[in-house]
C-alpha cells in the first residue's frame, strides 16, 4: 500500500486532476422532458383510441347497476347514473385535452399578435393595449374565468374562448417585452436599413425570434388551462353532464365520496393530476433547458 502511494505521488503531475460537473442540470431537464412527453403521449393515445379501450360508451347507462363498487362488469365501478367510470375517464381525455390545447393555441395566437403590435409600434397603441391587458390581469384568473364563462354561457367553443381570454394577456405581455428588447438589437436596424417594411420586420424578423419564451410557457399553460376547465366544470359553468369531463365527474361524484363511494371522484381526479403533471414536467424541463442554453 505504501509503495503504491509513493508510486502515485512520484508521478503526481501526470495524474489528471478531474473537475466534476458541468452538465448535471441539463441532464435533469432532459429527463423531465422525456417523462412529461411520455405521459402526454399516453394521454393523447388514450383520447384517440378511447372507443377501443372502453367497454362501455361515454354516456351509456347501466340502469341496474348504479353506484356499484369497482370490479366485475365495471372496472372502476359506476356513478349515481349507472355510467361506467373507467370508460368515462378515458373518454374525458378527449374533451379535456382538446379544450386545453385549443384554448392555449388561441391564447398564443391572439396574445402574440397583440404583443408584437404593441411592442413594435409603441406609443398610444401600446398604451391602450397594455391597459386592456392590465384590466384582464388585475382579476384573479379563476374569478375572471368564472365571470367570462357566466357571460358567454356553456358550450365547448365558449369554454375555449373563456380560457383563451384569461390566458392571452400573459402572452401579450411576454411577447411585447421580448419585442421591445429585440427591437434594440442591430439585426432589426439592419432589416430597416435594408428596406424592409414594418410588416416585413415584424413578420420575418421579430416574430420568429420572440417565440422562444412562448414555446417554453405554452406547455405549462396547458396544465393550468386544464385545471381551469375542470374547475369551471366542477362549479357547473363548464361542460355539462352527461358529457364526460374530469372536473364535471369529480363534481358529480362529490356527494357520493362523502358516503364512502370513493370511486366516483378519485379516478377522474387522478387522471387530471397525471395529465397536469405531464404538462408541468414538459414545461419545466423546457424552461430549464432554455435557461441552461442561455448560460
Amino acid at each position, binding site marked *: 500500500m505504501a509503495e503504491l502511494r509513493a508510486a502515485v505521488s512520484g508521478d*503526481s*503531475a*501526470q*495524474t*489528471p*486532476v*478531474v*473537475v*466534476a*460537473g*458541468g*452538465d448535471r442540470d441539463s441532464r435533469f431537464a432532459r429527463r423531465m422532458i422525456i417523462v412529461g412527453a411520455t405521459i402526454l403521449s399516453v394521454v393523447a393515445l388514450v383520447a384517440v383510441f378511447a372507443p377501443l379501450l372502453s367497454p362501455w360508451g361515454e354516456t351509456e347507462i347501466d340502469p341496474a347497476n348504479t353506484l356499484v363498487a369497482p370490479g366485475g362488469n365495471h372496472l372502476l365501478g359506476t356513478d349515481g347514473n349507472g355510467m361506467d367510470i373507467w370508460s368515462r375517464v378515458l373518454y374525458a381525455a378527449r374533451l379535456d385535452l382538446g379544450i386545453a390545447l385549443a384554448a392555449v393555441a388561441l391564447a398564443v395566437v391572439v396574445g402574440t399578435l397583440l404583443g408584437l403590435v404593441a411592442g413594435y409600434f409603441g406609443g398610444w397603441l401600446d398604451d391602450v393595449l397594455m391597459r386592456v391587458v392590465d384590466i384582464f390581469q388585475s382579476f384573479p384568473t379563476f374569478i375572471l374565468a368564472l365571470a367570462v364563462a357566466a357571460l358567454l354561457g356553456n358550450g365547448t367553443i365558449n369554454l375555449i374562448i373563456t380560457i383563451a381570454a384569461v390566458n392571452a394577456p400573459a402572452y401579450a405581455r411576454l411577447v411585447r417585452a421580448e419585442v421591445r428588447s429585440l427591437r434594440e*438589437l*442591430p*439585426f432589426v*436596424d*439592419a*432589416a*430597416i*436599413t*435594408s*428596406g*424592409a*417594411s414594418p410588416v*416585413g420586420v415584424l413578420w*420575418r*424578423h421579430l416574430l*420568429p*425570434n420572440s417565440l422562444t419564451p412562448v414555446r417554453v410557457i405554452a406547455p405549462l399553460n396547458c396544465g393550468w388551462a386544464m385545471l381551469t376547465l375542470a374547475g369551471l366544470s366542477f362549479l357547473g359553468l363548464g361542460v355539462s353532464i352527461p358529457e364526460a369531463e374530469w372536473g364535471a365527474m369529480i363534481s358529480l361524484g362529490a356527494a357520493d365520496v362523502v358516503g364512502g363511494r370513493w370511486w366516483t371522484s378519485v379516478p377522474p381526479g387522478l387522471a387530471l393530476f397525471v395529465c397536469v403533471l405531464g404538462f408541468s414536467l414538459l414545461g419545466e424541463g423546457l424552461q430549464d433547458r432554455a435557461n441552461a442554453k442561455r448560460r
Partner: protein
Amino acid sequence: MLSIENLSVTIRRPGRQVAALSGVTFAVRPGEVVGLVGESGGGKSMVARAIVGLLPGGSHATGRVLFGDSDVLRMDDAALAAHRGRGVAICFQNPRGALSPTRTIGKQLVDRLATHQDMSGDRAREAARELFEAVGIRSPQRRLDAYAHELSGGMAQRVMISLATGCAPDLLIADEPTTGLDVTLTREILRQFRHAADTDGRGVLLISHDLASIAEVCDRVVVLYAGTVVESGPAAQVLREPAHPYTRALLRSVPDVGGRPVVATPGAMPLLTEAPENCPFVARCAHADRTCSSRRPGTQPIPGGREWSLACFHPQTRPLDADLPSTSHTPDAGDAQPAAADPKPAVLEIEDAHVVYRSRFGSGGHHALRGVTLRLAPGETLGVVGESGCGKSTLAKLVMGLVAPTSGTVTVAGQALVKQPGRPRPRGRALRRARTRAQLVFQDPIGSLSPRRTVGDSIAEPLRAAGLSPAQREERVTAVLDRMELDRSILQRYPHELSGGQAQRIGIARALVGEPDLIVFDEPTSALDVTVQAQILDVIADVAADADRASVFISHDLATVRGFADRVVVLYLGRVVEEGPVDVVFDTPRHPYTRALLGSAPRLGGTAGADGEAVELVKDLEEADAATGCPLAARCPFVTDRCRSEQQELQSYGESRAACWRVPELPALIGRQAVTP
C-alpha cells in the same frame, strides 16, 4: 513565485472534447509584469482560471501550477480559499459587471478587507480611502459611497484594481483590463499595473489580445496559440523582432498610426480536441514545411536572448519591419483629392445637424451631435474617429435614417430618409428603395444577423425592397458571395453557426448586394480577433476602393482609419474638432484633442506616443455639459477663459481645419509642458 509547469487541460463534456491547454510552461516572479497574449480560443482565460483554481466543470488537468511551494491544482477547499484573495487576485474584463450593483463600492471594498485582512470597520474604511488614492481616484471619500452604475468604465476598472490589490496579494491577474476603454484611458490603467509591480513587489499577469498595447508596461510576454506557448521572452525584444511566425502575424495584423500597412494572415485558429502532434500554426504559416506538419516543435531558447524561447523549427530573425514594403503609405491618398473637387453631386450631405435624445423622464436630454456638417462625394472614403460617447454611432444612425435630426438636414443621394424640417420625405415603397441606397455594416457581426433566418435570407434582404425575382436575387447573392470569398454552402446556415469573421463578411455582402451609393462601416472590426480583423480590413479596403461608391468608416481606433480613408473627421462630445486629409491630420495634428489621441495610440517598436510631444488630457471627469465654449475645455491643459466662454468654429490651418483658436501657439505650449513636470 508562480511557476506553471507543463500544464495541460482538456475539457470533456458529453458530445464534445476541447484541448484548451497543451503543455503550457511559464513563470511570474515578484515585481515582474508578464503579458499573456493571444487571440480568443488561445487559452489565456483558462490559464487564469487554473491559477485561481477555478477550472470549469469537466476539466481534466495534468502538470503543475506551483504557487510558492504548493500546487494549486491539488489544493483542498480551505487552502484554495486562503490562496484566493491573499495569494492571487483577479481584475475582470468587465469591471462594472464584476461589482455588485446594489452595494456601494466602499462597502464592497471594506467587506473584503475585513474578511481577508481581519481589519476593523474604521480601519478598513481608512485603508479603502488610501487604496482609492493609490489608484488615482480623485475625491476618494465621495467615491466610496458611489454605486457601480455611477462609475465610468475607467473609474470602475480602477476600483477593481483597488479591490484586487486591497488584500495585498502576491500575484495580481488582470484579464483584458482595458478592452472597451478609450485609448486615452488605456495607458493610464496599464500604468496602474506597472505601479503595483514596482512599488509593492507584486507579480502581475496581464492578459490581453493586443500585444502592442500592453508591451509598454510588460517585462516579459508569453504568446499563446491554440493552447500552446509559441513564444515567450523580454517584451521589447519580442515586440521588435518577434521570432515566431504567429507572433509576427499577430503584430502585423494590427494597424499602426504611423501608417504601416496591415498584412493579413489567412485562416483561423484551429479548435483542438486533443494535444497537437504537429505545430498548431502549420496551416497558416508561410514558412511551414514537412517537419512542421509531422512533429510538434519543442520549446528552445533563442541564442543571445535573455530568457527568450520559442517553439518553432524556423525562427525568424529579421526585425518585423524589414520584410515589409517600405512604409510610405497608400499612394491613392494623393489622387483622391481631385475626386473631391469633381462637380459630381454629393452622395451624403449633412448640414448643421443636431441630435438630442430626449430623456423619457423629466425635461433633460442627451445632446449627442452638436452641429455636424459633412459632404461626401462618390468614390470618397471618410474616416470618423473619436472615443466612446463622442457621437460616432449616432452619426451612423443619422446617416442611415434611423434617428431624425433635431435640427439641420441629412440627405443620402439627394433624398431624406427621415422626417426633418423643410424637406419632403418619400413614403412606402419609395422610402424603402431610398433606404437601400445607403447600407450599414455593424459592429456586432453576429448580432446584426437575424438569429432565426438563414444567411442567404439575410443577404437577400435589400433585394426584396428592390422587388427582384427570386432567381435574380439568387444570382446577385452568389455574385457577392464570390467577392467575399465565401462558399455557397454558407447560405443555408444560421448566424450562431458562423465565426465572427464569416459573419462580418456576410454583413458586408448584405451591404454590397444592392449596389448602394454609400456604405457606412460602424466599428466593423472591433469585435473581431486580431488576425481576423486584418482579413476583414483587407475586404473593406477593397470595397471602399470602388470608384462609384462613397464610404464612411467609423472607428475609435485611429490606426485602422489611416489605412484607407481619404479624409478624416475627429469627433469630440458631438462636435467635429478637426477635419482634413488623412495624412495631414495624422502627421501634423492641430487640435489638442487630436494630439492627445495620437499620443496615446500604441506604436510598434516600443516608442509609444509621439515622444514628448504628446498632450496629456485631464482624466476622468464627470461629463460636463459643454453647451457653451470649447467641449474640451474641462480636460484641456491649455485652457483659457476664452475657451470656456466662446464657441469654437472650425478654422483652416494649412490643409486641415480645427476648432481651436490656440492652434498657432500650441507647439510652443507643448514644449513648455514637456519641460515643467
